[in-house]
């Protein structure tokens, strides 16, 4: 879990509100909220309540959106031919650009 990000977002949303007032809105004790703000990992119930209060998808703290599609790439070379560094670099560029185009076309990229 990205506890740093969770703590940061709680503090930003709480702003000038006191811990007690924010905790009341969330539905947890002020001690519990304080612990999370101090980067202690909350239990599932508290985590759910905090995410609901923040209006955010829990998955962003669980690293789920950080998973990018990994391309599987196969490159076939002319038999008995050694690839030049210039070709390797150009192929690399082509593969990365093609991957980007596929992701954009299919809105896979977040």
């Amino acid at each position, binding site marked *: 879990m990205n506890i740093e990000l969770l703590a940061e977002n709680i503090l930003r949303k709480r702003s000038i509100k006191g811990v007690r007032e924010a905790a009341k809105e969330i539905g947890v004790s002020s001690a519990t909220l304080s612990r999370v703000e101090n980067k202690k990992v909350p239990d599932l119930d508290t985590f759910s309540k905090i995410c609901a209060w923040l209006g955010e998808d829990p998955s962003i703290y669980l690293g789920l959106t950080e998973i990018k599609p990994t391309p599987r*790439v196969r490159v*076939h070379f002319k038999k008995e031919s050694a*690839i030049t560094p210039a070709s390797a670099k150009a192929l690399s560029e082509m593969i990365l*650009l*093609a991957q980007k185009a*596929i992701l954009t076309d299919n809105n896979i990229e977040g």
Partner: protein
Amino acid sequence: MFKRGFKSWCERFATDKRQELGLSSSDPLDARLLAENLGIKVWTPHDVPGLTQEHLNILLHNDGKTASDWSAVTLIVEDIKLVILNSSHSLGRQSSDLMHELSHLILDHQSQEMNASSEGVLMLSAYEKDQEDEADWLSGCLLLPREALVSIMKQRLDLTIAASDFRVSMSMLKYRMSMTGVARQYTY
């Protein structure tokens, strides 16, 4: 050495695909038509958005003596499959290369992961030889199924014209004739 039944499966697959595409079992099969049927995109470097002219020149450098050193790139991103062909090669060569790449995808061979660095693509160890052999065999069947070879021999077609019709090289045609035993069964 192939798994038992692999060669028969390839012949059946080649026949079934032709039927599905409205072709007879001895008709030439366009690799691009098969790619479309399989939902696989086919590009050349010219189709890659943002590729610089400098890189295009390197990738497609072919002076007729030292053809550029890559044949095809297959990219699999999520469920999207894309084959980029080296368009500096002859149409026959491209057709053969595309069929080879499609065969790897049909056989669900695991491809290498790419490691990109600022120095270029770091290629991992060579593709499994067994898988290369399987893809070679399946692509040969797809391009020239046994029934097509028999038909060529029965009609006493000129082999150069037959190779051109099926978009294969003469050496591929002769190889398939030999490996399937058709050359021994039918003599001009």
